[in-house]
């Protein structure tokens, strides 16, 4: 047999003792030194076991291949009761499962708002009594092929984006974006919030559904790819994606409903984040395609309920691995400050799970100051994510990095080995129920969630 290293001049990667790299320098042998550090404390035995799993490499290639080959298309807009089979008095929420007892302020506020919207209570106090008494069944959006931004509360009467994966055949759902200010997803539940939800159910949803029926499905993969090249990272900046979406759907909206077209278009246009929810459903359907590959250490969901930050891993089924949700580090609106911030909340981390959001920061120089930092920080953030991901997305590219694909497919073994945690861009909800949004910034997931998932993989 031949060994290629015997046939060429040596070019060496070194990991470990600096003396050995220095010896290569003195011999003028080209080499690259790994900036090696010990893994997360306590993970060494599990790491060795998981890395030795003969299934891992192929399983991860399969999982990330499914994620990046997914072709999400927006195929419909439909009520939650219909598509999710949600019975009355069942609400979904963002993040790992949680009960009222442990729910944070914004989560409670959103649940109260949903109870009012569904007509289960006449006022907030009555809604709270209903929720405290367990009169409403709660479950995680992720358990129902759905994702929800911030509190992510979905009740049966809400309308949802339906996204279908043309490649793998899955579907995923996300609620419609309510706009900014006092909104349910940030825990506000005042009359204007419920009023807007009614309008969304009566006008926005049906009009978008009719328009989509006329226009045919919208190719979200292509739209996201274009938006990245126009300065969005698809989590905290969706301005380009929203604009592209409006351009694509506007004629059909006018055709489908001359009566409400201007109202609907004004609403969609007035909210730079309108696309986020469709993008989240696209992320969910792509991540779900990568689920349940035995032996895979790839993360298929990161989600927060305002109390816990949880992850799910392809090779570990529907199990959640959690740690306390951190308070984002960012900029605050108006007179709000860190004291007003709730810990991290929402399923929008599905964008980072799929290689967007914080992972694509280098694509979005326009928002780097908004989430704290300058352009070089954004580039550093994206570059560091290549350290913990399995692949570069073939369609989602970053012009400023020479059209390199975004880092996609978080591997818990790489997180444990490097101690590098996923960079998450996020909104900040007020901690008191009813407040709404107070800011936006960056947050790090708890390392213990990754360590726990790794330990579970080792026990598989």
């Amino acid at each position, binding site marked *: 047999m031949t060994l290629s290293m015997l*046939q060429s001049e*040596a070019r060496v990667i*070194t*990991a*470990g003792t600096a003396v050995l790299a220095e010896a290569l320098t003195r*011999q003028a042998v080209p080499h690259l030194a790994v900036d090696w550090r010990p893994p997360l404390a306590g993970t060494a035995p599990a790491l*060795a076991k998981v890395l*030795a799993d003969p299934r891992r490499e192929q399983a991860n290639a399969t999982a990330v291949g499914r994620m990046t080959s997914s072709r999400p298309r927006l195929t419909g807009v439909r009520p939650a009761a219909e598509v999710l089979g949600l019975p009355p008095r069942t609400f979904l929420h963002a993040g790992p499962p949680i009960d009222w007892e442990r729910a944070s302020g914004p989560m409670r506020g959103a649940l109260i708002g949903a109870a009012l919207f569904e007509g289960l209570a006449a006022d907030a106090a009555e809604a709270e009594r209903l929720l405290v008494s367990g009169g409403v069944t709660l479950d995680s959006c992720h358990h129902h092929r759905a994702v929800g931004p911030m509190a992510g509360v979905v009740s049966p009467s809400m309308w949802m984006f339906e996204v279908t994966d043309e490649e793998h055949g899955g579907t995923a759902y996300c609620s419609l974006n309510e706009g900014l200010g006092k909104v349910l997803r940030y825990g506000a539940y005042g009359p204007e919030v419920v009023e807007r939800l009614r309008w969304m159910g009566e006008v926005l949803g049906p009009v978008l559904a009719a328009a989509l029926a006329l226009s045919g499905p919208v190719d979200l993969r292509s739209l996201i790819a274009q938006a990245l090249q126009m300065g969005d990272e698809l989590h905290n900046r969706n301005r380009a994606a929203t604009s592209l979406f409006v351009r694509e759907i506007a004629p059909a909206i006018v055709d489908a409903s001359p009566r409400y077209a201007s109202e609907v278009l004004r609403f969609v246009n007035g909210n730079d984040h309108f696309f986020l929810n469709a993008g989240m459903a696209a992320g969910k359907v792509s991540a779900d395609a990568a689920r349940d590959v035995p032996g895979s250490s790839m993360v298929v969901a990161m989600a927060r309920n305002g109390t816990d930050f949880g992850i799910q891993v392809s090779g570990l089924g529907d199990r959640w691995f959690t740690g306390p949700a951190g308070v984002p580090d960012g900029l605050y609106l108006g007179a709000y400050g860190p004291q007003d911030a709730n810990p991290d909340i929402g399923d929008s981390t599905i964008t980072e799970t799929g290689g967007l959001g914080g992972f694509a920061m280098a694509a979005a120089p326009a928002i780097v100051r908004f989430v704290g930092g300058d352009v070089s920080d954004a580039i550093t953030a994206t570059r560091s994510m290549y350290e913990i991901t399995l692949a570069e997305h073939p369609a989602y590219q970053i012009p400023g990095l020479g059209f390199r694909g975004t880092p996609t497919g978080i591997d818990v073994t790489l997180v444990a*080995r490097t101690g590098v945690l996923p960079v998450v861009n996020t909104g900040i909800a007020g901690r008191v129920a009813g407040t709404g949004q107070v800011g936006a910034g960056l947050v790090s997931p708890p390392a213990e969630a990754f360590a726990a998932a790794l330990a579970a993989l080792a026990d598989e």
Partner: protein
Amino acid sequence: MTTNTDQVEVRAGVYHDSVSLMRVSQALGSLPGVGVAIVAMATELNVGLARDVGFDVPAAGPTDLLVAIRADSAQELAAAGAELERQFTELGRAARSGGGAATEHAPRTTRAAAKVFDATLALVSTPGDHAFAEAMDAVEAGLSVMIFSDNVPLEQEIALKERAAERGVLVMGPDCGTAVVGGAGLGFANVLQPGPVGVVAASGTGAQQVTCLLDHAGAGVSHVLGVGGRDLSAAVGGRSTLVALRALDADPATELIVLISKPPAPEVAEVVRRAVDELSTPVVTALLGPGQDDLTTAVEKALHALGRPVPRWPSWTVPQEPRTAGLCGLYSGGTLCAEAKLIAGTGEFTDFGDDEYTRGRPHPMIDPAMRLEALSRASGVVLLDVVLGHAADPDPAARLAPAVREAVERGAAVVAALVGTDADPQGMRGQAEALHQAGASVFVSNAAAARHAASLVRRAS
């Protein structure tokens, strides 16, 4: 008993390798007025060490950095603190420069490095508990890998070698101290002239002895492929030895192969023998064991096979009287130690390069402290090895010679096996002179050194 001239701190999440930290400790320790300087990862061992000398060490874990400095005055302590920061800045700069590749950020794993650097192989020298991940990265990226680290679990070695077989790459090690591949000396490698001999070695210092003797004889090497001390065990089954032999057989630059090992498991020896029979390149085998050739004899056989004359192996002897006290072998090389023990047939031998002495601290070829300490207590006939080359102590004689002189003045007879070449950074001849002048008999052949030492003992009994 922490005093106001103590500085003790724990820095969380700061990592440097043990050799770099040892150098920092040494630099601080040599400053005027500095009594103790411990700059080390906060392993149980190092924390215990610091507490033993009276530092009040706070709770810390092995991923934290421990700094404990004691000086005679506050002023000297402050100077040491400033030097510490300067050293760390230096280390940081060295890490960032990353050896000249054009990347803005040094990669954090071998996996990431392999994506941005067109490498031919990887060299892993992390602590043994963590070597598997980096080595597996290399194999999965289709790269051969040399694992310098020791204390790597056996099942990890087997898993790596099985995966390497699927990928058509070679795993050298673990605990592979020496290799020369594609013109590059890796690990503890001597500066050798290029030539026709390929070496497969389950032994680092054994390979260094053989290649240095070949170099003295004017015969150079094509490649030196280490396979790790356990490769020929029953459990590992010679997996890497077989790959290395076949690869050298296919290498046009290799005219003769020398295979070096400690005694292999019998069933593995049989497999290797059959593989050797199938090669078209002649193979000289040096298996250490009773009734087998020593390394020097094997080199002589290789020279005969190449049709080259065998030179007189250089030595620098001093007149030495026999000693009644016994023979004491203080080695840094495991194979050299085993060979000397076999030849001498008597005495107490210690291999300071063995896993039990290197957990959490540098190899004795880099850090002579433990061996110097043993030398300071030794009597009778003392036999030791001095191994030169890249990555080894830049001037071993500087610290050994005074200790040798002391031992000789104490009445001991000191014999040294000096493994190196004139092209080595330390310069073989200068090192030999220094040891010789300190009163040692010096031999470039370990076998000759062992015979000489044994003769000093035998004649006494």
